[in-house]
């Protein structure tokens, strides 16, 4: 444990934990527009601004589109910049997500993951961030409030070293509004970890030679920029691993990257699941284990860059996989995690049968009988796509 890091145990909601991490980081600029269920991040942070405990320039913009636009402007100047959003707000930012990544700006965004309209629904699923998956943003997903806090701090270093924007996903309400006990590090420890701000790469305001950022690129150059972005995302894997190790060194807490395996020793089947339901499924998996069934759990923490290698390694000895996910691609091929996992496994020596289970859309609860159904699917490995907990549907 670092000498800088006396921890306190506090009861915090996910949104409180993110706001507290922001306070400790004390960013240069926060621009945000309120949307459920991420609103309290910015409410809490506004109070920190009003109380003068942070020196952040807070820009309370008139839309999420402008929130991310202001973040792009500020980050291009070399400022450390954060925002928070959910659902329709993230969808409204969609255009600017690509610009933030294309300009290689290290913006950190908390996404309290929520369903998309229509019908309108304010509750949790991963549809919002999954719609952003091809934008060039790195994506981290929290399992619990501790994760939401830790990953927010980690994201600052990852973003600034990879020169890419990072989203930290915390499941709407399940994490954003639930009170959990969190180990909180000292302010000094957090500030020592994140350092003073992005390095001298960003000279926009005071370069000795004026810089033009965001010009028109024609076919003779555009594709080279996009390839460079793809390579930066690929290289970010190494940076995430390195920064997670630095985090462990500094705070004395391990962060799982890129996937967290649970009970995978000699497992012949596995559930793959991101986000807050990992805890519930872990309970079930451990019960199944006790009952003599060789089933484990693999939780991806990182979705971008896609942890193909880590998933292949974690699932190497497995014959059946059930992917449980809270989003759909509406492509008839299942959810985005399942689609990408199948693609990642295609080159594996032994390919497990993958069954894609879509559950928990718009905050629908995962019930005991749903878990039993997952248990049966793990056993029977039917493949294909299933919708859990819908009964006969609407």
């Amino acid at each position, binding site marked *: 444990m670092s000498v800088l890091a006396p921890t306190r145990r506090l009861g915090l909601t996910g949104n409180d934990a993110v706001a507290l991490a922001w306070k400790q980081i004390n960013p*240069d*600029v926060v*621009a945000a527009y309120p949307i459920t269920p991420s609103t309290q991040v910015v409410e809490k942070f506004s109070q920190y601004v009003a109380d003068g405990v942070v*020196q*952040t*320039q807070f*820009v*309370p*913009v*008139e*839309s999420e*589109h*402008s*929130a991310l*636009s*202001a*973040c*792009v*402007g*500020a*980050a*291009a*100047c*070399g*400022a450390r*910049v954060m925002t928070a959003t959910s659902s329709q707000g993230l969808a409204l930012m969609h*255009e*600017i997500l690509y*610009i933030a990544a294309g300009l290689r700006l290290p913006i950190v965004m908390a996404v309290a993951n929520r369903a998309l309209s229509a019908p309108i629904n304010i509750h949790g699923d991963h549809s919002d961030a999954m719609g952003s998956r091809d934008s060039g943003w790195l994506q981290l997903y929290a399992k619990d409030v501790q994760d939401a806090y830790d990953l927010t701090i980690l994201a600052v270093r990852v973003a600034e070293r990879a020169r890419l924007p990072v989203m930290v996903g915390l499941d709407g309400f399940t994490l954003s509004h639930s009170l959990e006990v969190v180990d909180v590090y000292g302010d000094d420890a957090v500030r020592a970890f994140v350092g003073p*701000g992005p390095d001298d790469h960003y000279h*926009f*305001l*005071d*370069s000795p030679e*004026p*810089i*033009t*950022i*965001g*010009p*028109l*690129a*024609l076919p003779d*150059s555009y594709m080279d920029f996009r390839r460079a972005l793809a390579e930066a995302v690929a290289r970010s894997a190494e940076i995430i691993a390195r920064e997670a190790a630095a985090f462990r060194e500094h705070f004395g807490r391990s962060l799982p990257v890129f996937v967290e395996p649970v009970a995978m020793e000699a497992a012949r089947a596995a559930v793959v699941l991101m986000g807050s339901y990992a805890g519930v499924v872990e309970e079930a998996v451990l019960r199944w284990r006790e009952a003599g069934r060789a089933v484990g759990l693999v939780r991806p923490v990182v979705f971008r860059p896609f942890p193909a290698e880590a998933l292949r390694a974690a699932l190497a000895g497995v014959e059946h996989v059930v992917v449980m996910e809270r989003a759909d691609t509406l492509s008839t091929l299942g959810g985005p995690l399942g689609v990408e996992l199948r693609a990642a496994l295609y080159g594996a020596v032994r390919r497990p049968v993958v069954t894609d289970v879509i559950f928990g859309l718009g905050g629908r609860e995962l019930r005991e009988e749903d878990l039993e159904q997952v248990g049966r699917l793990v056993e029977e490995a039917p493949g294909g796509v299933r919708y859990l907990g819908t009964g006969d549907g609407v």
Partner: protein
Amino acid sequence: MALNLRELSKRAEGLAPGHRACAGCGFPMIIRLLLATAPEPVVVVNATGCLEVVSTIYPYSAWPVPWLHNAFENAAATASGVEAAARALQARGRLARRPKVVAIGGDGGTYDIGLQSLSGAAERGHDFLYICYNNEGYMNTGIQRSSATPQGARTTTSPAGAVLPGKVQPRKDLTEIMAAHRMPYVAQASISHWGDLAKKLRRALTTSGPTFINVLTPCQPGWDYPPDQLVEIARLAVETRYWPLYEVEDGARYRLTYIPREPLPVRAWLERQGRFKHLLADEARVAELQAWVDDNWARLTSRAAASGERVS
């Protein structure tokens, strides 16, 4: 520095030669005047549009100052972020001198898709100048109508046909909308009156808080005139009172900065442009446009008179 030609000509050339604007395009004059009149360093945030496209084709840039392009509708929001970052970095000792932020957009990116972000930034009171270079249409995408397009003008999405006479609606009055935000300084200008424009730019750049200038700048392919008549066409918009030159302080004090001595009928402006060609034979429509111009002028002069200003 005095704002006369002798002094302005001593300033280094602003926008570099070699930008790709059309012959007979007005906005390079605005940029040159902006860069010549700026009393302190400026950084420019540019909305998507003709200006961005013609001045920054990678790997070239015509800009001698820091320049940032984000998207079409968000120049004001982006400028808000730049201004906030400059404040933050200066407060933390990471920036010696805070430059003046200037956002620039065409009428499409300002009157229409960018109006929300402009209004938001104005309400929040960011210290920046927003310049709308207003060529009265979406010229970058091939001359479509915008809410700045005047009634009767022919565009590719408001064509003149057997039933419709070009654009049906009068133009939106963005200058008044911005004045209603009670910004410290709002002005309307034209590239034809460079001295007036220079004074307004200087005034806006030295006023703290949000300022806005709406500059009329003809578009050669969009308005259809011989390239060498650019300035004359812009001047006719002013002399016919189609485009009054005025300024508004704090949304309340109105001042006409140029009063045409012998105002010309609006027809004198219409007949020099191809986009109104179909209209000229239709006396009723020309009269309708003239009535709109007269009404607008009367409204402005009464506000200026109420502010204690000379109006004729």
